[in-house]
């Protein structure tokens, strides 16, 4: 059995702390020769965004090199307005594979035998230390998203972060404050506002412009979720695979030995679903005008399922036995975590909006309205519109260049995440709760307020 080590300080702490606080400019491990970056037809180097990619699992590698969910053929590495400078993962094989593929791609693009301008890192603080990196893409285990994003913002980087963007309300608040203080650009990876042919935007604009009459109810098709550990640690231990930095993977979570599990999260840490629900609730929040808005009450509905009947560990997917919730918003709209009975559209990242004169259901595959005429009538010039972009990654990069706020800025993303987290806390506590969105705290439930944060493990006390 592996012995329990509560903390382990890195031997490179001081060097890295300098880097993470942005106090000094460190020499980058590799400098891209200017001659190779400004060829005819290419974006000149001065306009190219230097990027680092941290977290190279399915999602991170997909963003980097292309995949079904990245919406950019060939990924960021194929974009001429981006220069990939660093790849980082706590698994050696992943980072070396990504490094090799990026270097091969650049060599091919430049028509040369080899290229070594992409560096691979185990410790993300070394990436934060590089002054030539403008922006980072983070695709991390849930518990790392907010702390690492916050550190990156403090180091002067712009950040694109995959969901869930925070696992506690306090983390989200800290993220928003840091982004504002440091004047950085941040984009949450809830791509449905931008992608999927504008179906979600259309639903949002139709609802906001009263095409279904007054909005009364929304069905979100997905349980919310929250950090709600049944136990923080375990004595179960197996050998750490070679090339895997378990201590770094664990990061701010309390110490536990490696138990063979290190995917998106650890079993037993979450109630409900924090992984897919951000897509659903992002669209709900966008549409429940005004935006950003927030629920003021969460009504808990117990499940009829027996505890432990689900095959899912919690967090990554919903668990029926955790129950359901119904949110009440300040403008009277009620949002249900359940599907609209009998409606097939909405399950895939979507929602069903019910108004006094009709109903619209939308997801990644389709949008339908009842009556059908709602969808046939185009929006008029006088109708209110929402933020427009048809490329999520394109919007991030454009905002890095122009410093405009992104379509999923931290305020928006945190409002959504907070709605999910307070719903999850209600499920965890098995009781209904009242919420003050201005103060970011529950009303009249002091125990629930104790669940808005957790104590991170040093040195990750962001």
């Amino acid at each position: 059995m592996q012995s329990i080590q509560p903390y382990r300080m890195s031997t490179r702490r001081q060097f890295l702390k300098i880097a993470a606080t942005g106090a000094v400019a460190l020499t980058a491990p590799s400098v891209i020769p200017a001659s190779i970056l400004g060829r005819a037809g290419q974006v000149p180097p001065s306009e190219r965004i230097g990027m680092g990619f941290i977290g190279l699992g399915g999602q991170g590698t997909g963003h980097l090199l292309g995949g079904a969910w990245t919406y950019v053929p060939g990924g960021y590495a194929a974009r001429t307005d981006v220069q990939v400078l660093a790849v980082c993962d706590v698994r050696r094989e992943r980072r070396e594979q990504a490094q090799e593929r990026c270097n091969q791609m650049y060599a091919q693009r430049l028509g040369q035998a080899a290229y070594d301008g992409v560096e691979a890192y185990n410790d993300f603080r070394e990436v934060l230390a590089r002054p030539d990196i403008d922006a980072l893409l983070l695709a991390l285990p849930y518990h790392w998203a907010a702390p690492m994003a916050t550190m990156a913002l403090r180091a002067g980087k712009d950040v694109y972060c995959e969901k869930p963007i925070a696992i506690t309300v306090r983390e989200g608040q800290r993220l928003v404050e840091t982004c504002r203080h440091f004047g950085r650009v941040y984009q949450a990876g809830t791509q449905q506002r931008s992608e999927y042919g504008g179906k979600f935007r259309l639903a949002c604009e139709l609802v906001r412009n009263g095409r279904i009459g007054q909005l009364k109810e929304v069905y979100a098709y997905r349980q919310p979720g929250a950090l709600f550990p049944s136990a923080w640690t375990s004595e179960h231990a197996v050998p750490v695979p070679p090339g895997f930095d378990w201590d770094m993977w664990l990061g701010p979570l309390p110490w536990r030995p490696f138990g063979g599990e290190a995917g998106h999260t650890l079993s037993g840490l979450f109630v409900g679903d924090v992984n897919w629900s951000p897509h659903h609730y992002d669209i709900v929040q966008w549409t429940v005008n005004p935006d950003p808005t927030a629920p003021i009450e969460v009504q808990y509905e117990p499940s009829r399922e027996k505890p432990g009947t689900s095959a899912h560990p919690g967090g990554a997917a919903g668990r029926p036995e955790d129950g359901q919730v119904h949110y009440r918003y300040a403008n009277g709209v009620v949002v249900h975590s359940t599907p609209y009975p009998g409606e097939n559209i909405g399950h895939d990242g979507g929602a069903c909006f019910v108004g006094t004169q009709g109903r619209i259901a939308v997801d990644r595959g389709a949008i339908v309205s009842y009556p059908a005429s709602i969808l046939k009538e185009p929006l008029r010039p006088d109708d209110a519109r929402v933020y427009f972009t048809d490329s999520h990654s394109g919007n991030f990069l454009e905002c890095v260049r122009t410093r405009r706020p992104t379509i999923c800025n931290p305020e928006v993303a945190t409002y959504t995440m907070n709605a999910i987290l307070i719903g999850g806390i209600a499920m965890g506590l098995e009781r209904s709760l009242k919420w003050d969105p201005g103060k970011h705290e529950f009303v009249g439930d002091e125990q629930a307020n104790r669940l808005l944060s957790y104590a991170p493990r040093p040195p990750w006390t962001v």
Partner: protein
Amino acid sequence: MSLIRLPFFLMLVCLLRIGSTARADEEQDQIAILQSAANLAQKSAACQRLRVIGTAKSIPVLASLLTQEGTSHFARHALEALPFPEAGAALRAALARTSDKPQLQAGIIDSIGWRREPESIEPLRPLLASTNLDLAITAASALGRIGGGAVALLRSANDQSHGAPVSMVFRSVVQESLLQCAETLHGADGTRLASEICRSVLSQPASESIRVVAWRGLVLRDARSAPDLVRTALSGRDRSLQRAALGLVRELDDASILVACLGDWDDLPAESQAALLDANVRRGKAPLPLVRKALDSSNLALRVAALDALADLADPSSIPSVAKSAARGEASEREAAARTLTRLRGPGVREALLAAIDTADPVEKAVLLRALGARADRQAGDTLLRFAGAEAQPVRLAALESLRQLALPETLAPLLDLAAKAKSDDQIDPVFKALVAVCQSSPNTTETEGRVIAAIRNSAPAERRLLLPLLAELGTADALIAARSATQDSNSELVRTAVRVLGQWPNPEPALYLTDFAQFATDLGLHALALRGAVEVSAHEQDTAKRVALLEKAMSVARRADEKRLALAQMAQISSADALETALKNLAKPDLAEEAGLAAIAIAEKIASADSALADAAAANVLARCKAAETVRRAWALRRTPAINGPFIRHWLVSGPYRQAGVEGATAVFELTFAPEKADAKVDWKPTPVADQVDLSSLFPGHANCVAYLRAEIVAEQDSDALLLMGSDDGLKVWLNDAVVHSNNVDRGLIVDQDRAPIRLRKGANRLLLKVTQGGGGWAACARIAGIDGQRVPGLRIEPVQP
């Protein structure tokens, strides 16, 4: 310590659901765990529970754990959240007791910072001066969060930090904390002090990030200096501050700053001009002359910002310029211009848009005509019709597309005329689409059908054939008469089209007519077309008994087995005992057995929840007659819907990924055959991490359009029937002992037990091989085996296999 050495009641307490309502004595139980020899996991769970339910009573025992390496983190996790002053005092008291354990002390300092108690400022003072850099930095951060009274301490620390690189790091954190404190200062004095702090940090050596924080703080706090600060930053001489200003101007509500900046417009770099435009648009105050000027800029981003700005300015005179950008600009400019043409509003805009259409060249004309549709301009019918017959194809298509979008009833007759004049299918296609839209949205069906029928009647056969499908769009009684009458025409092509149109009818009215037509048709092709149509329109019949009767009638006149199969396939959609009976009747016919079996199973699946006995009997009947793997699988699943209680196969070997150049998509790669499927081929196998589900996307990150294979060995005590339950992302093919037992070529996400297959296990080792496809995104699989009663198979073992 093992659980069995704990008293039983402690175990029970440990296993209590954390969120359940606290019992009166629960806090004491949790305290008892912390005071016992329970293991770390149990103590951590107790701390977690005390964080939620703990009172001041818990604080002494939690405090006692703060100094122990194993428990310190969990104890402070609880104490950090307890809303009692004693908790803060306990944390502060632990500072001295952990002075020889800097890592524990760092955590305690952090928790003190989050509690934000002013009493903590003094105890943190010596730590701010600690020679241990980690502790000093953590203390500075904690003081930053406490704010208020910590300002003096942090200012002093900032002033004293000079020299070596290490202290530069410290100073950077101190500066950040100081600026954080400044945010918490209120009132006139507070604002003055906050400005002073920001100004002093800006005047000192500081990192770029910290300078930005200080600069933003100063702009937001010092109203008098803000315009000059922003103007200077926007000039671009200091790149960091310029980028900060580009963001900040878009957040500002202070008009004086924006007005001051606009005065420098001509001297500003383009990106600063774009930010100023955005900021003014946000406030609804964008100055038109500057927007027009920006529209002519050589900078693309500025032009796009100007186009976005124009959308909110009621400026009809800008329409020709916007149309030019929409027609000939760069991609992002074209999109922005098209959006602006759609959204431009205000007096005179519509008239200017119509006037611009007349003078524009064909490419710009097309852009403007499309805008009329996108703007839902219901008065634009005449203008659009004027160009719907234009020679220039882009113009014609744009006008017709807008007419389709608007679907104006008054455009029906002119569009029918256009259709009559169309010279080719290419020409009529967009006209026809517009006509369909008009028919579908017509508020006056009688008038519409009258016009359409008259137009068809007055057309020559060739044109009539092109217009006949409109009758199906109308779907009325008179339209049906017209369509039926066309089936009696002497022109054979017209007859064929009329039969096809009847087969696309939106209700079941033509079903019997088509069946009769099929029965007496001498032309085999017409017979098949009519019969197919009869089956298809039967699907619209809501009364299931009538629908079954219609399909039985269709089957009775069918001349070939494939026609009967078609009717059976439609029968499969009906959820009724009558339909099931009809399907089962055909099981006995050898040429229809498989189709009838499939239909019977589909029907039985629908009625299973209401009449499980009937569904079970049907499944048994089908299993006795049918051999098709899919039918058998579904029949088995219908017969047995057990509550599954079997363990997952957790020991796998994996090989892959395999791909073939040029083959893309999960369903395409499914068809490829790779080494693991070939006998005697050399295959590299590696063990997977032991888990219920194999996450292939983690094992092979970033791969798409490929497959991986999973191998396991199942040892059975005896020959037995069993169910293999599987989930996969994406598709799945399965071999047991080299025979295919399951095949599902899909692109999907994994749901546990989403597929089932009946299998026969043989005594001893059984080889299980899974092929899992990957189009893109998630990639995973899981499998388990249960008896046919849904329970565990006694003695079944999954052995780790050696590669």
